[in-house]
C-alpha cells in the first residue's frame, strides 16, 4: 500500500495557466461505522475541465464491498478581481458495506487526466460490530396512531436491526431423516421498502430442497410483532428433506434492501438508502431413523400416508386388459421412496406402471398414483394379492405397515388372445367362427299362428258385428230425439178425440157447451200439432197455420168454425139449437181434413 502524503497538484496546462488544473479529493461521511451500516465514500473532482475526467476507478477495498454508486455534478462561477472564473465539480459517491469489524484503510484513489495522475489520500476507517448510526426514522405509516408521544419509546427503536430484519421460521426443530421441514424467510420492516433483491442463494447442505414460494413482486402486509407494527413479506419458502443426520445448518438468507427515508422538512425530499441484511443462522437436529422395528420392505417413506388399491373390473375375457391402480397419499417425502413391488402372477402380464406424483403447493403433501395396465392372458381365477407398504410415521415415531385389499379376478375364455406389442394398436382379429349358442328360454311358448286361430277370426266377426249394432243404436237415438214432438202429436189426436166425444154428447143433447168443447179441443189439438204452447190465441194459431201453407179451403173452414163458436158462446142469442147438428157434422169434417193434412 502506497503511503503518499499530500496533496494538491498544480498543473500548468498548455492552454491557460489557471484553467487547466483539476482538483481531486476523497472523503468519507464517517470514520467509524458499524458492520450493519453503509459507509459513503465520496470522490470529488473539481476544476474547469472536471466534466472531461472519466469516472474514477475504485481500487479493491479490502473488507468492504461496494453496494452502490451515485454521481452528480455542479458548476459555480466566481468573480475575482473582476475576472470571472467558472468551475465544475463532479462528485462520485460509493456506498460501501463493511464486512467485518476492525481497522481498515481505504486506499488512495487515482484519477487520470491528460496523462497526469491525481491521487487522493488513504482514509482509515474503524469498523465496529452492529451499527453506529441511528436508524432512519421509521415510516410515518408505521407509527402507532393510537399511542401517545410519551409511550413512543416503547414503540420505536432507533436501532436499524429492530426496524428492518429477516427471520427464518422453521416448523420443526428436530426431525427424522427424510422428514420434511419447511423454512419460511420473512422480511420485517418499518420502513418504506423501495426495492429488494437476494444477495445470495442459501446453500442448503445436507438437504434435498424443494422451492415452495419465491415472490415475484413486493407484497407486504401489516402485522404486529413484539408490540410493534411492521410491514412483513414472505421472501422465500422452501421445503427441506434432510439427507444427512446430525445437527444441520439452515443457512441465513441475505438481502439487499433499499429503503426510502421520510422527508423531514419541506426542503428534504427524503433519500434512498441501501442496507444489506441477513437472517440469523439456525440449525435443525436430524435424527436417524430407528433401526428397531424397521420392516423389510421399508423403502424410505417418511411422513404419514394412506394407501389404496383399485381394480377396473373383476371379470374379463382372456386377452382383455384391466388397470390396477395404487394410490399413496399423505404428507412426507412422496418423491423419495419406491412404490410397493407387485409379485409375479402367472398369466397376468403387468405392463410397466405409469407413476404420477401429484404434489400439493406446500411440496410436502400430495398423492402418488401408480397405474398398472394388466393383460389377462389365460382364462381362470386369479388373485391380486394384498400389497404392503411401510413407512415411518413421524407423528407416532414408529414404523407402520399398510396393506391394500386383495382382489379376485375371473378371466373368462376369450375369443382371441391379444397381447399388444409395445404401445401400438392393432385391430382385433377374428380367430375362430362358430354358430351362436342355444337360446335358454324361460318359458317355452308354443307359437300360435293367429291367422290360423279361431279366436282371432272370432274377434274380427265381433268387431264387424259392431257396425250393424251401431247402426241400430243410431236409428234408435234418432227416434228418441224426435220422441217428444212425436208424443205430443200422437196425443194431439187423443185429446181432440176426447173433446170431440164430449162435444158429441153436448150435440146430442143440443147444449151450448158443445161450442166451448169444440173450441178448446181444436185449440189444444192445433197447438200440439203445430208444436206451439197451448193457450195460444186463435189469431196466433191461424197465422201459424197460414205460415205452414194449409190448403185455402181448410183454413177458411177452420176460421168459419172458430167464428161460429165465438158467436155461439159470447154473442147474446148467438146460439140456436137447430144449427148444432149441422155444426157438429162440419166440425167432424174439418177435424178429419186437418188430421189428414200434414202440418
Amino acid at each position, binding site marked *: 500500500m502506497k503511503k503518499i502524503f499530500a496533496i494538491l497538484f498544480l498543473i500548468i496546462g498548455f492552454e491557460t495557466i489557471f484553467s487547466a488544473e483539476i482538483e481531486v479529493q476523497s472523503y468519507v461521511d464517517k470514520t467509524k461505522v458499524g458492520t450493519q451500516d453503509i459507509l459513503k465514500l465520496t470522490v470529488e473532482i473539481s476544476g474547469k475541465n472536471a466534466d472531461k475526467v472519466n469516472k474514477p476507478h475504485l481500487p479493491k477495498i479490502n473488507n468492504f464491498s461496494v453496494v452502490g454508486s451515485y454521481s452528480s455534478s455542479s458548476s459555480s462561477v466566481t468573480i475575482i478581481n473582476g475576472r470571472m472564473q467558472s468551475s465544475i465539480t463532479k462528485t462520485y459517491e460509493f456506498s460501501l458495506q463493511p464486512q467485518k469489524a476492525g481497522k481498515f484503510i481505504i486506499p488512495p484513489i487515482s484519477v487520470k487526466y491528460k496523462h497526469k495522475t491525481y491521487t487522493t489520500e488513504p482514509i482509515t476507517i474503524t469498523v465496529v460490530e452492529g451499527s453506529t448510526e441511528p436508524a432512519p426514522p421509521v415510516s410515518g405509516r408505521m407509527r402507532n396512531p393510537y399511542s401517545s408521544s410519551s409511550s413512543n419509546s416503547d414503540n420505536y427503536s432507533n436501532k436499524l436491526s429492530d426496524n428492518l430484519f429477516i427471520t427464518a421460521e422453521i416448523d420443526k426443530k428436530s426431525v427424522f431423516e427424510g422428514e420434511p421441514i419447511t423454512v419460511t424467510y420473512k422480511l420485517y420492516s418499518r420502513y418504506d421498502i423501495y426495492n429488494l433483491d437476494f444477495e445470495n442463494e442459501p446453500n442448503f447442505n445436507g438437504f434435498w430442497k424443494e422451492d415452495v414460494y419465491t415472490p415475484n413482486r413486493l407484497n407486504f402486509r401489516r402485522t404486529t410483532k413484539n408490540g410493534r407494527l411492521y410491514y412483513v413479506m414472505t421472501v422465500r419458502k422452501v421445503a427441506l428433506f434432510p439427507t444427512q443426520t446430525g445437527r444441520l445448518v439452515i443457512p441465513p438468507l441475505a438481502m439487499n434492501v433499499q429503503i426510502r427515508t421520510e422527508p423531514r422538512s419541506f426542503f428534504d425530499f427524503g433519500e434512498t438508502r441501501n442496507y444489506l441484511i441477513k437472517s440469523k443462522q439456525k440449525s435443525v437436529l436430524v435424527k436417524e431413523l430407528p433401526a428397531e422395528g424397521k420392516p423389510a420392505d421399508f423403502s424410505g417413506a417418511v411422513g404419514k400416508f394412506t394407501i389404496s388399491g383399485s381394480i377396473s373390473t373383476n371379470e374379463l375375457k382372456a386377452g382383455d386388459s384391466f388397470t390396477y391402480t395404487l394410490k399413496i397419499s399423505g404428507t412426507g417425502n412422496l418423491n423419495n421412496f419406491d412404490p410397493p413391488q407387485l409379485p409375479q402372477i402367472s398369466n397376468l402380464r403387468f405392463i410397466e406402471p405409469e407413476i404420477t406424483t401429484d404434489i400439493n403447493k406446500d411440496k410436502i403433501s400430495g398423492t402418488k398414483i401408480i397405474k398398472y395396465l394388466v393383460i389377462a392372458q389365460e382364462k381362470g381365477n386369479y388373485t391380486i394379492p394384498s400389497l404392503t407398504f411401510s413407512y415411518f410415521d413421524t407423528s407416532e415415531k414408529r414404523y407402520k405397515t399398510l396393506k391394500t385389499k386383495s382382489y379376485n379376478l375371473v378371466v373368462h375364455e376369450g375369443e382371441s388372445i391379444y397381447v399388444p406389442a409395445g404401445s401400438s394398436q392393432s385391430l382385433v382379429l377374428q380367430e375362430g367362427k362358430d354358430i351362436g349358442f342355444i337360446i335358454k328360454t324361460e318359458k317355452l*311358448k308354443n307359437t300360435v299362428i293367429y291367422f290360423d286361430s279361431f*279366436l282371432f277370426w272370432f274377434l274380427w266377426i265381433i268387431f264387424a258385428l259392431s257396425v250393424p249394432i251401431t247402426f241400430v243404436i243410431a236409428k234408435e237415438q234418432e227416434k228418441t230425439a224426435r220422441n217428444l214432438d212425436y208424443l205430443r202429436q200422437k196425443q194431439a189426436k187423443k185429446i181432440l178425440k176426447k173433446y170431440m166425444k164430449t162435444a158429441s154428447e153436448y150435440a146430442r143433447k143440443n147444449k151450448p157447451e158443445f161450442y166451448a168443447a169444440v173450441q178448446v179441443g181444436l185449440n189444444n189439438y192445433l197447438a200440439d200439432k203445430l208444436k206451439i204452447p197451448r193457450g195460444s190465441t186463435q189469431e196466433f194459431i191461424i197465422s201459424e197455420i197460414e205460415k205452414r201453407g194449409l190448403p185455402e179451403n181448410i183454413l177458411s173452414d177452420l176460421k168459419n168454425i172458430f167464428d161460429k163458436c165465438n158467436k155461439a158462446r159470447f154473442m147474446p142469442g148467438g146460439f140456436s139449437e137447430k144449427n148444432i147438428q149441422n155444426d157438429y157434422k162440419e166440425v167432424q169434417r174439418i177435424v178429419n181434413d186437418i188430421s189428414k193434412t200434414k202440418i
Partner: protein
Amino acid sequence: MKKSIILAILFAVTFFAFSENQHDEIFRKAVTAYEQKDFSNSLQLFLGLENNGIVNADLFYNIGNCYFRLNKLGKAILYYKKALKVNSSHRAAERNLKYALTFTKDKQTIEKENSISLFFHKLFNFFSLNLLAIILLILFLLIIFIINLIILRYRETEKTVPVFFLFVFISLFVLFAILGYLKWKHFHGENEAVLLSQSAIGYSGPNEDFTRVFTIHEGMIFTIEKTENGWSLIKLPNGLGGWIKNDNFERVKI
C-alpha cells in the same frame, strides 16, 4: 268394454293354454345337456318337445344347433329354416343358417336382387306373421271404430277428418293384408326342402334311367315343383331343374 274383454281372453288363451310346466322342465334339461356338451341327449329332448306339437322358433333354433354340433349339416339347415319360418326376424337363426351354409359342398348362390325387391324382401322378413296379424287386427279395429263414428254422427255435416282417416287406414289395411296373405301362404307352403343325404343325383325324369342332370350335396336348399311315384321335380336356386328321390330330402314345414 266388450271388446277389451275379448282381447283379454285372446291373450290369456295364448299364454296359458300352452305354457305347461312339463315342457319347460324338458327344455331346461335339454339346455343343461347341451351345456355339458351332451348334444345327442339334448337333441333327443328337444325333438321330444317338437313331437309334442310345440312350435317355437327358439326350440327349432336349438335343435338346429344340436344337429350342427353332431355334424348333421342338412338337418341343422332344415331346422334353422324352420325357425325362420316361424319367426322370420329370428336374428340368431339367420346368423347360424348363414354360417352353416358356408359348410355345404355346393355353393348356394344367393340371387342378386335389385334394390326394390330387396326392400320388399326385407319388409317381408321384418314383420313376423303374428305381428302382421296383430297390426291387421288393430287396423281393422280402427276402421270399424271410424265407421261407427260416422254412423253415429251422420247428421253432422263435418265428416272430412274421419273419412280421411278411414281412407288412410283402409289403404294401410289393404297393404298389410296383402303382406299378411303372402306371408301366411309362405308359412303354409311346403315347397322348400333341404337335402339331408350326403349327395343326390338329379335326373331329367323320375327314374334312374334318365340322363343325369346334376349332383347336389347335403344342406342344399331347393324348391319342389311336383312329386310323382316317390320322385320329386326340384328346382335349384341357380335355375337347374331335375328329379330326385323323395327319401333324400325333407320339406321345411311345421
